[in-house]
C-alpha cells in the first residue's frame, strides 16, 4: 500500500505541475459550454427572430402589393441597407426579379414567374431564403383564395385532406442540437482530458530515461500501470464533470422556450451521466496508456493517441447513418454510451440495464488492457526498446 500510494502521489504531483497538460485537460470543459451557448443562441435567433433581410429587388414598381408584403415581413430593398451592413448584404447578393408584365399577367390570371437568385449552398442563406419563399407563397396563396372567393367557391375545396400532426416528443427532444453537441463533447472530454497526462507518464518517462529505473525497482508493473491509470482517468473524470456542470450553467442562459423546447440537466440526469461516463474515462485512459507505452518516442505516442481520440467523434457520427442498429452496438464503449445519452437527453426513462451492461463491457475491456499492458512492461521487447 505504501508503494501504490507513493506511485499515485508522484503521478498526481507531476500531472498537476504540468500546466500545459492541465490546460489541454480543461480545454473541453471550457469549450463545450461556450460552444453550446453560442450555437444555441444563433439557432434560436434564426428560428424565432425576423431580422431585416436586404434584397436586390428589380421590378418592384410593377408589384407594389408584393413589395408591401415583403416590407411587412421585414424583407427590405438593398437601397435601405445600413452602411455597416452594406458589404455583407452585397456579398450575400439575394436577387428577386419581378417581371415587367406582373400587373397585366395578374389581371389576365396568367402564372407569373418571379426569380429568386442567390447562392443556395451557403448555410447563412437558409433563413433568408426560407423567409422570402414564405412571403411569396403566402402572397400567392392569399391572391388565389381571393379569386376563388369572388367566384363564390369555398376555399376549403383547395384542401380535400387535412393532415393533423401531433408531435409526441417531449419538449426536451426539441433541444436535439444541444443534446447532440453535449453528448459529443462529453465523450470527447473523457478521451481528451487525460490524454496529455497519459502520454507524458508513459512515452514521456521513457524519453526522459526514468522508465528503466522504475522498472528495476521492487514494484510490480501492475501497480505502475494502475497508478498511471488512476491519475490520467481522474483527470478525465474531472474534465467530464466540469463539462457537465459548466454546460448546465451556460444552458440556463439560453431561452429555449422560444422554440418550444426545454433542456434540463437536473441533478438526476447529471448523476446518471457521471455513472455512465465513469467507465469510459478509465477505458479512454487505459487505451491511451496502452498505445503510448508501446510507442518508440513521445512524438510517435502523440500521433497514435491522436488517432484514438477520433473514436468518440467518429462512432456517434457513423451511428446516425445506420437505421437498424445491431443490438451489440448498445453494449460497446462509445456507441453504447452515445445511445444511452440520447435517451437521457430526450427525457426518456433511464435504461439501467443498458447503462450496467455498457459499463461492465467497458470496464472488462479496461481490465484486459491493464493486464495486457502490465504483462507487456515485463517483456524483453519493452526493455530492449528502453535504450
Amino acid at each position, binding site marked *: 500500500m*505504501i*508503494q501504490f*500510494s*507513493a*506511485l499515485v*502521489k*508522484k503521478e498526481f*504531483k*507531476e500531472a498537476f*505541475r*504540468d500546466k500545459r497538460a492541465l490546460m489541454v485537460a480543461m480545454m473541453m470543459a471550457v469549450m463545450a459550454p461556450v460552444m453550446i451557448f453560442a450555437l444555441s443562441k444563433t439557432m434560436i435567433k434564426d428560428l424565432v427572430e425576423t431580422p431585416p433581410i436586404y434584397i436586390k429587388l428589380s421590378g418592384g414598381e410593377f408589384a407594389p402589393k408584393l413589395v408591401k408584403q415583403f416590407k411587412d415581413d421585414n424583407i427590405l430593398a438593398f437601397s435601405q441597407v445600413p452602411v455597416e451592413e452594406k458589404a455583407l448584404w452585397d456579398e450575400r447578393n439575394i436577387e428577386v426579379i419581378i417581371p415587367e408584365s406582373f400587373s397585366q399577367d395578374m389581371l389576365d390570371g396568367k402564372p407569373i414567374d418571379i426569380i429568386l437568385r442567390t447562392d443556395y449552398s451557403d448555410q447563412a442563406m437558409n433563413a433568408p431564403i426560407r423567409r422570402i419563399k414564405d412571403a411569396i407563397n403566402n402572397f400567392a396563396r392569399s391572391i388565389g383564395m381571393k379569386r376563388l372567393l369572388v367566384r363564390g367557391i369555398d376555399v376549403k375545396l383547395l384542401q380535400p385532406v387535412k393532415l393533423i400532426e401531433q408531435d409526441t416528443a417531449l419538449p426536451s427532444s426539441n433541444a436535439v442540437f444541444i443534446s447532440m453537441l453535449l453528448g459529443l463533447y462529453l465523450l470527447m472530454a473523457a478521451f481528451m482530458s487525460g490524454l496529455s497526462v497519459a502520454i507524458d507518464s508513459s512515452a514521456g*518517462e521513457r524519453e*526522459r*530515461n*526514468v522508465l*528503466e*529505473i522504475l*522498472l*528495476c*525497482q*521492487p*514494484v*510490480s508493473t501492475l501497480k505502475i500501470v494502475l497508478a498511471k491509470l488512476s491519475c490520467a482517468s481522474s483527470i478525465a473524470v474531472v474534465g467530464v464533470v466540469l463539462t457537465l456542470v459548466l454546460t448546465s450553467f451556460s444552458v440556463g442562459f439560453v431561452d429555449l422556450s422560444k422554440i418550444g423546447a426545454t433542456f434540463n440537466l437536473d441533478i438526476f440526469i447529471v448523476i446518471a451521466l457521471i455513472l455512465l461516463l465513469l467507465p469510459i474515462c478509465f477505458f479512454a485512459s487505459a487505451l491511451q496508456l496502452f498505445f503510448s507505452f508501446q510507442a518508440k518516442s513521445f512524438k510517435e505516442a502523440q500521433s497514435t493517441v491522436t488517432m484514438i481520440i477520433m473514436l468518440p467523434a467518429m462512432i456517434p457520427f457513423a451511428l446516425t447513418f445506420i437505421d437498424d442498429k445491431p443490438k451489440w452496438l448498445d453494449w460497446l464503449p462509445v456507441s453504447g454510451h452515445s445511445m444511452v445519452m440520447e435517451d437521457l437527453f430526450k427525457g426518456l426513462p433511464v435504461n439501467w440495464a443498458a447503462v450496467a451492461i455498457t459499463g461492465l463491457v467497458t470496464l472488462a475491456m479496461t481490465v484486459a488492457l491493464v493486464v495486457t499492458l502490465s504483462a507487456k512492461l515485463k517483456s*524483453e521487447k519493452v*526493455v*530492449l526498446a528502453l*535504450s
Partner: protein
Amino acid sequence: MIEVNNLHKSFKKVKALDGLSFQAKDGEITGILGPNGAGKTTCLRTLYGLLKADQGNAFIDNINVENNPLAARKQLGIFPDKFGLYERLTAYEQVDYFASIHGLSGTEKKQAIEAVFCDLDMQDLAHRKTQGFSQGQRMKVTLAQALVHQPKNFVLDEPTRGLDVMSTRVLRNYLSKFKEKGHCILFSSHVMQEVAALCDRVIIVANGKMAAQGTPEELCLLAGERHLEEAFVKIIGSDEGIAA
C-alpha cells in the same frame, strides 16, 4: 553478495552472454571492464530481472533473480547508465518516492532521506525542482535515490560518464565509505584509471564471457604489462572500446 553463474543470452543470432560467471563480494568494489558490446549492460539487466537468461542464474544475496525478481531488487541499489530524473519533482520528493517504493515510511523514511542528503552534502538542493540541474547535481540525486534504503548491494553502470573531476571525486569517496560499511559494490566502467584506483577486483568481459579476473595488479602481472589499460587490451585481444 552478487553472484552470476554461467549466464547465456542471445538476441536472435547475436550472442550477448556466453557463459558469464563471476562473484562480487561484500565489502569489496568489483569492477566490470569490457569493450562496447561485450555484454555488460545485458548482464546488469539480467541482474535487475529485466531480462531473462537463456541459461544460468543470477543471485543477489542468495535470492534467485529469475524466481523472485522483486525480492532480489529489494537488496539492490541501482545507478543506471542513463540517469533520468522526474524534472517536475524536487530532489527531496524524488528520493522520497524511491524510499517509499522500497517500503520506507514515517520517521524511518524521513531519517533515511535526511541521512543520505547529509552524506552527499546536498541539503541545499533538497527543495529545488530537478529541472535544470547540472550533471553533477543529477548524479547526486540519482545516487541518493539508489542508496536511500541502504541496500546491501549497489550496482553502478558507467556512473562517471559526463561527470567533472569534482563530481567524480564525490562519487568515489562515497563508494569508498559504502565499501567500508561492508556493502557489495559492482561497478561497470570504461575508465581504466578509475577502475585501477577504486576497484578491489576487476572482471574483464569480452564476447559475453569472462576473459580474466583479479586485482588490477594481478591483471597487469597476468598480461605482463605495467598499466591496466595495456593489460586490458592484451587480455581482450583488441583495442576496441578503449576510446569510449
